[in-house]
């Protein structure tokens, strides 16, 4: 078991009062497994992903990764977890604008102290980025930027990849090809994947589908 979520509850303060987002989620993800997390807007998909990624803490429940409760770690521990064990891919790409493509791709791997030039070269070629290495994010198309974001995550070879609508900003054909690449490279790297998506078609490509509704797992 790579990720185990136990009775996760999370709420936020809003102008209208306390808003409960997650109301007791239980979910397990095995090593190398891929899960599609689907559901309507506001169902808590992104929140769940953020909790699994150690970006936020649950109000209640446990986020267990490799036998450790991530939610119980302090700021330093969670930063170390994000740095070495998890890879995040976002819809907005969130590349580092000051670094060129090559530096963006190797950034996380170097931080995690897992930089492997051979693996990076292979991955860069499979992502079709070998001619774009000297460019900066603002000089790339959306599809190219997302491929760089995926490359950045996979270059670090994390045990767990968390992807939040990674193809949401791309057209259908580009989105399909990007996801196929991610799945294929993820398998090569031996990473498990938890992917948030609205698209049933994309969800079908993954091992398992989980539907969130009203802050709970509906199926």
């Amino acid at each position, binding site marked *: 078991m790579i990720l185990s979520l136990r009775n996760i509850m999370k709420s936020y303060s809003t102008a209208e009062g306390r808003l409960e987002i997650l109301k007791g989620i239980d979910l397990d993800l095995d090593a190398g497994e891929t899960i599609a997390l689907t559901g309507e807007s506001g169902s808590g998909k992104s929140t769940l992903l953020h909790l699994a990624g150690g970006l936020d803490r649950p109000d209640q429940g446990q986020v267990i990764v490799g036998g450790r409760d991530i939610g119980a770690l302090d700021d330093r521990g969670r930063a170390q977890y994000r*740095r070495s064990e998890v890879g995040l891919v976002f819809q907005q790409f969130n590349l580092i604008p000051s670094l060129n493509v090559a530096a963006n791709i190797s950034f996380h791997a170097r931080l995690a102290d897992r930089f492997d030039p051979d693996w990076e070269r292979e991955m860069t070629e499979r992502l079709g980025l070998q001619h774009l290495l000297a460019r900066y994010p603002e000089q790339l198309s959306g599809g190219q930027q997302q491929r760089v974001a995926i490359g950045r995550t996979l270059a670090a070879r994390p045990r767990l990849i968390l992807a939040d609508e990674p193809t949401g900003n791309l057209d259908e054909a580009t989105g399909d090809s990007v996801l196929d690449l991610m799945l294929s490279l993820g398998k090569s790297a031996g990473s498990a994947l938890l992917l948030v998506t609205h698209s049933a078609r994309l969800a079908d490509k993954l091992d398992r589908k989980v539907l969130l509704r009203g802050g709970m797992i509906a199926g």
Partner: protein
Amino acid sequence: MNWIVFKALLSHWRYRPLQLATLLVGVALATALWSGVQAINAEARASYDRAANVLEQNRFDQLLPRDAKGIPVQAYARLRRAGWNVSPVIEGDHRFGQLRIKLIGIDPLTLPEQARAFPVSGASDITSFIGGDGLLVVSPRTVERLGKLEGMVVRTSSDIPDDAAFVDISLADRLLEGDGSLSRIVVARDQRVGLAPLSEVAPELLLRKADETPDVARLTDSFHLNLTAFGFLAFVVGLFIVYSATGLSFEQRRSTFRTLRSLGVSLPSLTLMLVVELMLIALAAGVIGVVIGYFIASALLPGVASTLRGLYGASVPGSLSLRPEWWAAGIAIAVLGTAISSSQSLWRVWKMPILAAGQTRAWARASAAAMRLQAVAGLVLLTGALALVFLGEGLASGFAVLGGLLLGAALLLPVLLSAVLRLAERISRGALTGWFWADTRLQLPGLSLALMALLLALSANIGVGTMVSSFRQTFLGWLDQRLAAELYVTARDEDEAARLRQWLAGRADAVLPIWSVEGEVLGQQMQIFGVADDPTYRDHWPLITGTPDVWDKVASGQGALINEQLWRGQHVGPGDRIALPGRWDVEVVGIYSDYGNPRGQVILGLDSLVLHYPEVAKLRYGLRVAPDKVAGLKAQLIVEFGLPPANIVDQASLKRQSQAVFEQTFSVTGALNILTLAVAGFAMFSSLLTLSGIRLPQLAPVWAMGVRRRDLALLEVARTIALWLATFVAAVPVGLALAWVLLSIVNVAAFGWKLPIAFFPLDWLLLGGVALVAALVSVCLPVWRLASVSPSDLLRIFANER
């Protein structure tokens, strides 16, 4: 203008109060320092005008003596007989107790009405002026300082400058113990036609045309230009803040502009509303700035007044009067400055396509083309400045060199920093270090104006500091040489002087007369000194250059020394002959440095001085005695002659006084330096604060990959220190170049003396420390905001449904 739309535009500031505060403070600071300096200049100039008009009647032609003897009354009588409408003046300094007053003795019956500084309305006024014990007309402030005068009536007139008094000519002659000789003759404008020319009636007199005098206003021009330059520097730095704040507020409202335009607001209407908004802000900040400027000027004016008194003998009141034109000018400069610094932003709005997307980060990016243009402009300015060093001449050229140097260096700074950061990024090994340098380079366009402002302030500090310290070092060395005598004594009259000489004969190792006359040399009024043939002069006098037998020639009357000001100003040097008053000439055999004196000066052998000017006052002496005997001799002099303490000054006191005058001279410059640095610090603060508002999208991915907020905040501090350090390193050579220009070009043009440059690295370190503290203070709030940013704010960056 649509009020609803205008309110929508203004609502931006409700959500960004700190940005509004930055904008207001930027305009206010720029206005404050500029208008403060202008107020000081205006006050001083008004004072010079009043003094020139009242004391010297320089709106009239005047007849002056050709030598120090004065004008015989017969010459005046001749002029009157020839039909010339002229009026005599006797003037000189007189002590009333401790107060030294310039007495101007006039004849109210003949003096043109416009030349009088006080109303004389009828026969009774004239009678009281010329009759009785004596009537003094002085300023209200002088009355307070004079106290009660026995046997004299004092009247006040606000048109008379401080420390001056108008009296009847006969009273002036009596008080000044004159022999009836006139100091000058005022020539009225209304004259009968067909008169014999003045040159025929009084050929022995010199005609000075109205407004031709080398008056104090002209002498102090360079000082005021200096102040103006500082005020302008602070103004430019303030405008950087305004440029930065308006630029960001416009970028942040791009989506609002787009929405408003898509809702039917025309481009001219939108632009007009933005102009109105900016002008309202400028007016509000302008008023605040003028008020702050008034306080700055009030705080600095006493220092300026004593500087002007110390350097030029110019009298300026130590308090400021409120002038309506100054208020108007201050607010106008605020509006103008805001208009200039926001014109680019307004132009962008004018050219913005209706469907342009909001791109907050675009504001912080500069295109490579803009950077190239900046580099070219910087190089052109530096080259121009260099060319002027070799080809230019005069004060204006000196200031042009300063401007070109500072602006050129400031423009080149971001280009150089970018290159250095690129290199650092290339050679760094760690992922975080590489990102640090790359990210710093990305921030550069957003910070470049603040860094340029910091460079200007630091360079100005280093440059002016080096100039002042070099001057101080040279000046103190020069004082040691020049004030070689251990004791300086001044007799109250010639009889006392004669007794003094006799008494001192066995008691002092040497008695060195310090005698001088005033006269015109090479068209300028100056002092001509005589020196004894003594080792004190031969060994100590600070000569810049001279013939090998310079002192022998001076002692024998075959040669004269001139000061550096005369040498540089009139282009006369060793080997040239100069005409001296009394129609004789002498060869220049040496040049000596004479700091602090704005005028030319000549030194002759003592015998030669007495021979050509037998009427010279022989009152002042320098005494050489063993240092341990100084106090005893001083006490004996007081007992024996009853001389007041002011007439016996020992070398140490004189040096202390001279040093105090020197330090006072540059206290205003120091204050302006600090204020400019403070404005630059605020520019840095506002830029960092501005950037911190748009940094989150750049920092969130790094945080998500496992770098803590605290570490990111520390990296922000490290970035500020790195940029500060780089700017400081760049400021040192620029500051030294500035010091060289000040010492070798501006000082020569303004004062007539050149100084060797000296380096004071400890002063730079101290300045660097102060600037570092300012930089750290400026980064405190932005870093605290970053360190305490909540994870939910960072998560919002990644949220899909933003």
